[in-house]
């Protein structure tokens, strides 16, 4: 799927020569280095989005413990209170804040409403997300 498949084909512009087709470069979805804020937004949305999909199905799978009644649920609650799980909750919150706020930004620029503001909006998204994350983390660990 993410192969960098390259093959040669006849060039129209340079008669008698074969050109090397560019391979698919999935790595560029995850390489914002040297790129603008827009790309950081794109990468953030993609990574967080895929992470949240993964979480969604994990979450639904874990909920199946409920069918086992009291014991299953208690086992889960014990696990959920462990520091590792609280840390995962923080990661989840980061994903939700990042994807949600940046999604709002994408909706605003994608409907052509605030196109010129895409850079300041990204900075606003980042600031609000970090503040939200700190607040959330404090809440999780104090509870």
């Amino acid at each position, binding site marked *: 799927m993410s192969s960098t498949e390259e093959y040669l084909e006849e060039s129209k512009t340079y008669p008698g*020569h074969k050109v090397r087709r560019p391979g698919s470069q999935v790595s560029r979805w995850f390489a914002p280095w040297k790129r603008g804020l827009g790309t950081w937004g794109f990468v953030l949305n993609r990574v967080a989005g895929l992470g949240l999909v993964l979480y969604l199905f994990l979450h639904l799978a874990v909920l199946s413990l409920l069918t086992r009644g009291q014991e299953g649920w208690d086992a889960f609650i014990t696990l959920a209170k462990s520091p590792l799980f609280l840390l995962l909750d923080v990661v989840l919150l980061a994903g939700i804040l990042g994807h949600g706020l940046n999604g709002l930004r994408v909706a605003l620029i994608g409907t052509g409403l605030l196109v010129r503001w895409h850079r300041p909006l990204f900075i606003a998204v980042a600031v609000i997300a970090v503040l939200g994350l700190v607040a959330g983390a404090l809440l999780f660990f104090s509870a």
Partner: protein
Amino acid sequence: MSWQITYKIKRYHPDQGSRVDTFQVEIEPERTVLDGIELIWAKQDRTLVFRHACHHASCGSCGLVVNGVEVLPCIKLIQDATTDGGTLEVEPLRNFPVVADLVVDMAPFFERMQLIGMPIVGPTGPLPGQEPDEYTAFENCIECGLCLSACPVVATDSKYLGPAALAAAERVIEVSEGRLSDEVLAAVDNEHGLWRCHAAFECSEVCPSNVDPAGRIMALRRRMTFERLRRLVGAKG
């Protein structure tokens, strides 16, 4: 006073595969990255192939990736690209078929531009303070392909129409007051047309001509979104 610059140029020949060649160049900092490449060709290595013509960002043929970012080397001064003793890593544009060394085949790009059919000369406004008059000017888009090279979606989806063609479509709408042929609309208002863009804005970042393809794609998207919503409401009412 000249600077000492190291050029690391990605080479490719159909039979020999890829490699990186290093050249030491003595060049004035006010000359361009392209001048340095031409100097290498003239004095050091006649086998180096690269595209260039106008040397002033009009023909759009010389686009390259320099130190990881798309540039038109003909208007990138050495002093803006590196420092004395610095290194320039030069590669061909990404997402295009490579012919040899720094030469890419623009055919797939121009097929799409031809489909959209934006005339390269269009109306332009008068200068500030000037009487309104009929002026024409070459379009800002010089069809250099930097936007396609920089786009992370073009990097994986060869079916994506791409920033330049979509921006051209928006320009055609602007000039012709909303008229696009069905054939063009089918390509533009399409899963692999304007809806494929993920707003990374790289096209606008690297555009040497202020075309702002991303902004134009967003304008197209707004146009098509509200048109759909109007039709939906109209159909129900």
